């Protein structure tokens, strides 16, 4: 699969996919999208990178330990839940506020996003860890 055509296309498509996955993640708590779908999309983008450049070649410039992403994601998601206990509410209670930013205008800032980021990291960590291990075998 490491032809010039796939490599050229991958260079264009992978950043787009990553941006789309992040936008899915950020809108996820009250619109279609969410940590899981965004994470799956991110994982497909990276696996496209692995397939088009070959696992050994892509390891030279891009070689993260995906299992750590899994661990950090689970930690973040659980901590987001327990954080609301520390704030005096029940587990996973969420709250939101509106923020005025210069370029973007009014932005909704929700605490559910922390949990979603945790899920996002768990999904990309889990999927890409399996994908990479199976590729290495």
């Amino acid at each position, binding site marked *: 699969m490491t032809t010039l055509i796939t490599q050229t296309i991958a260079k264009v498509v992978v950043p787009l996919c990553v941006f789309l996955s992040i936008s899915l993640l950020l809108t996820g708590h009250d619109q279609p999208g969410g940590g899981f779908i965004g994470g799956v999309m991110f994982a497909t983008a990276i696996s496209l990178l692995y397939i088009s450049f070959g696992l050994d070649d892509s390891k030279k410039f891009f070689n993260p330990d995906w299992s*750590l992403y899994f661990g950090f994601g689970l930690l973040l998601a659980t901590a987001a839940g327990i954080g609301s206990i520390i704030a005096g509410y029940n587990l996973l209670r969420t709250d939101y506020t509106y923020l005025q930013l210069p370029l973007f205008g009014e932005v909704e800032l929700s605490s559910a996003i922390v949990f979603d980021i945790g899920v996002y990291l768990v999904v990309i960590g889990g999927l890409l860890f399996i994908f990479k291990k199976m590729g290495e075998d």
Partner: protein
Amino acid sequence: MNILEHTIVFMIAIPFLVASLMILTRPFPEIQKKLNVLVSIVLLILSVYLFSQVWQNGIIAYDIGDWGKYGIVLVADLLSASMVLLSSIITFLALLFSLDYIDDKSQNTTYHSLYNLLIAGLNGTFLTGDLFNLFVFFEILLIASCGLLIANEKVEITPSSHKMEAVYKYLILNIIATLFMLVAIASLYGTLGTLNMADMALRIGYMNENGTLPWHLIPTALLFIVVFGNKAAIFPLHFWLPDAHPTAPSPISAILSGILIKVGAYGFIRFYYLIFEGNLEIFQPIIIFLGLATIIIGSISAVGQDDIKKVLAYHSIGQIGYVFIGIGMGTVYALAAALIYLINHAISKSMLFLVSGCIVHKIGTRDMRKIGGLSSTEPFLGLMFLVGIMSISGLPPTSGFIAKFVLFDAGISGGFYIPILIAVIFSLFTLFSMFKSWQRIFWGEIKDNIFEKENIHQNSKTMLSSLVIMTVIIFVIGLYAEPLIAITLETAEQILDPQLYIDAIIPGEVR
């Protein structure tokens, strides 16, 4: 703001948090071990606290995310709290055992994080008040236990290929069962419009009063019998168990056999006595029949095995049948007896699996034909195994005697003469198979070839201490059973009065 109000959710959240920490601390195995033991002790203390709270103040309900009955509700009634307490005890002791028993390579990679996920899954299954959430926790349990099943022991006793085969069967059969569960939950949700178990019970109760209960809820109920029956390994659905339990490392077998198959019985109680309360009485003979068939199949199969852990695994199938006839009989006394039986089997069978783990650790084989005369070198293990088999086959003064006596007494006072007769006859098979394996392992002539292996491991003090704790529990229950009987009778009354559960979750004004 009292942090102890959140005890019920800490039982699930702490293991998840620790599981993630375990992944991040993989380069430091000593920290992992100490942290895991510490967390198990904390969870044990919290579960005792939770039980005492439920015992004093009645049912505790907890809304996750403050969504009320529309979100996920955690409920601790006496049944859930006692099951959580039981699982905390067993998982703590099995963890103590596994520190020196599991191969270091397995422990350093995934063992401890999966162990915590398993604890989270168990506690979540027992505490959740939401049917779909129950499904999710079943999946967590399944995946975590699959990962633990293929962990390696220090003695290379089971080849990895056998483990993979057993895991494959376990995974596929349980995934089919959870698929059934998903279909059944979807059907219930489509009919009732809610996933909260208390709300479901309420709505089915209203439909029943008005005579508008749709006929397809009864086939749905049958699907649930298949699902929970598969989890509990009752008669036609028990095929995965005799492969999966013996190939797992011994502490994991202790958890699988001690707690994990009880999840099916727990789900069955919830579903039969809470959600479909009073609508499934036509199934009562079927449940008793399936329980008896399970006893017969399990007890007879256990007699002919040559593998120590296979004897115990087949025997677990038989024992879950006794729990199911207790549940099927449905009086307060019989239900209490089923719970006592369940608790006794959890402790005694876990202990037997741990003793067999000690034997395996020392000898390096599970095949009883190659073992003999062990009492001359390992008298302590012989004593522990004897206590375990006395308890499991119901001899006084152990907890097994109390369990069997109460169950048979409940059956006779309820008028179930023929099922009890069959159960008594087949408990003799238990006695026979257990004492036969004890005799084959510890008596007879010493086989020369068993001590010649190079990788003989000594049993460490932490391994033996968990056995001693279990022995103490067995004898305490056997000699002073009144508190346990009082607790289980109270629990059974609470189970048979689902209105208490419903009132605790859905206050009258929001119905």
